[in-house]
């Protein structure tokens, strides 16, 4: 065949900018990089400024709105006294357990419903109904059989993670183009081969959307459940700070919670991109 010459003109995998780039191009990339790093910080910086002006001018009493500097000092104190790391460790452990449980169960249920209409007919209405009850609404009921210990917290977090994982896994499997099933049929794929080599890889993007949503939900549920029933963890720091009227502790704990949530989501995002190197670069 004589196709090689004409084929060679088409796109090669590498990004052209890195290879062909002169100094100007590198500078442009640098500028673009700085812009993507700095732009998301613009609004928080403005809020921080407003905050410090507000506490400087005494627009709100210091007990209600502590100065940014005080919160920073409190954060450092908590960090040094290792209170913070201990609480964060406990909270992360709970999320890890709950998310592992809820995520795994969600993937299983979602896959079962995606693969079998019968399973979907049996389970989908129930799951949709359950999803309508906010996670916190489950606490009073589950308190009775599970107590207020770790089991309750893990169960609540698992439930929070479960729902988006189930629904996105189901939608993801349903959205796999039937055309690809025919390709698999032509090559005589078995059911297991169809599942492992066509369905799962094709469903990775929505599946990960579900997992990320599930993780965010798990983290939010953690804070809620620690607020209600706990004597340790980041959520407990919030409660304790409020009871002591130490808003600097409350805000410090909130900062840490937000930071960890952001980190967890970014971490899963990295895994997602790694699994989807085949997708068109955004």
């Amino acid at each position, binding site marked *: 065949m*004589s*196709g*090689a010459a004409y*084929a060679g003109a088409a796109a090669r995998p590498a990004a052209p900018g890195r290879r062909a780039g002169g100094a100007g191009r590198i500078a442009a990339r640098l500028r673009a990089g700085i812009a993507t790093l700095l732009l998301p910080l613009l609004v928080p910086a403005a809020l921080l400024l407003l905050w410090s002006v507000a506490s400087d001018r005494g627009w709100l009493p210091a007990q209600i709105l502590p100065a940014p500097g005080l919160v920073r000092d409190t954060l450092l104190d908590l960090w040094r006294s290792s209170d913070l790391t201990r609480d964060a460790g406990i909270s992360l452990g709970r999320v890890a357990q709950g998310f592992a449980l809820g995520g795994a169960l969600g993937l299983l249920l979602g896959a079962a419903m995606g693969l079998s209409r019968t399973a979907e007919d049996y389970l989908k209405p129930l799951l949709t109904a359950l999803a309508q009850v906010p996670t916190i609404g489950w606490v009073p009921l589950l308190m009775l059989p599970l107590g207020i210990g770790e089991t309750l917290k893990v169960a609540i977090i698992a439930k929070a993670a479960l729902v988006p994982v189930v629904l996105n896994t189901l939608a993801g499997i349903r959205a796999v183009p039937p055309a690809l099933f025919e390709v698999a049929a*032509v090559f005589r794929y*078995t059911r297991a081969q169809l599942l492992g080599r066509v369905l799962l890889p094709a469903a990775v993007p929505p599946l990960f959307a579900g997992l990320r949503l599930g993780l965010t939900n798990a983290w939010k549920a953690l804070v809620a459940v620690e607020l209600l029933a706990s004597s340790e963890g980041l959520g407990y720091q919030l409660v304790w700070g409020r009871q002591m009227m130490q808003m600097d502790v409350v805000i410090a704990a909130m900062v840490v919670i937000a930071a960890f949530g952001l980190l967890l989501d970014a971490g899963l995002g990295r895994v997602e991109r790694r699994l989807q190197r*085949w997708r068109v670069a955004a």
Partner: protein
Amino acid sequence: MSAPGDVAARGRVELRGVGKRFRVDGRELTVLDGIDLVIEPGEFVTILGASGCGKSTLLRLLAGLEHPDAGEVRHDGRAIAGTGLERGLVFQEPRLFPWLTVAENVAAALLNAPLDADAKRRAVAGHIAMVGLGGFERAYPHQLSGGMAQRVAIARGLVNRPGLLLLDEPFGALDAFTREQLQDELRALQAREGFTTVLVTHDVEEALYLGDRVVVMSPRPGRIRAVIAVPLGQPRDRADELLGRLHHAARAALRDTLPLAA
């Protein structure tokens, strides 16, 4: 699997009284009716018809993706009961797995082939080179042009060394230049390797330029209207006078097939 070179001995196709009906909105629709056709080993047959004439259904019956309601479809004497690695299929769209590289996509066709890993590797490399994509083994489908992706699909369709290659309007979505180039390449490949080929198209020129015989079909219900032999060797000249005359005959046959309402 068989060694290269012996494929020409296989690939005989027989259709006897084949009929196919579909239920559409509760109504029975006869898509194919009384199809009789014998395709000899190594022959290149094109199936020409307007959309809705059942030509794609006919190809899907040959692939084993559909089953006839009447009559029988045989490949090398055996009734076709389902898909099989002894028949290769190329769709109108490349239908590559987007998460696999070119080499992995071709190898995906060999998943259930009775070959050891080494033989599979060699078959994949050989067929990628055969369609002129050497050097693109590790590219992903989204990095390929439409023509390149369809070459990968052809390599994938041939990697099991099927006696029969089925193509469903494989060049319909390509630009004119790429289409002509791929037509030439497919015909050269077929002449060299000797696999029986059935190609479905609605393009009169393509049907005549590629086919040893052109089967013209009429729609609703899908029937064979005419079979036009093209007594020209390969390679062909697109401006050949005989092709021009046959073009008129084929167009006339096609025109007759169109219902008055159309």
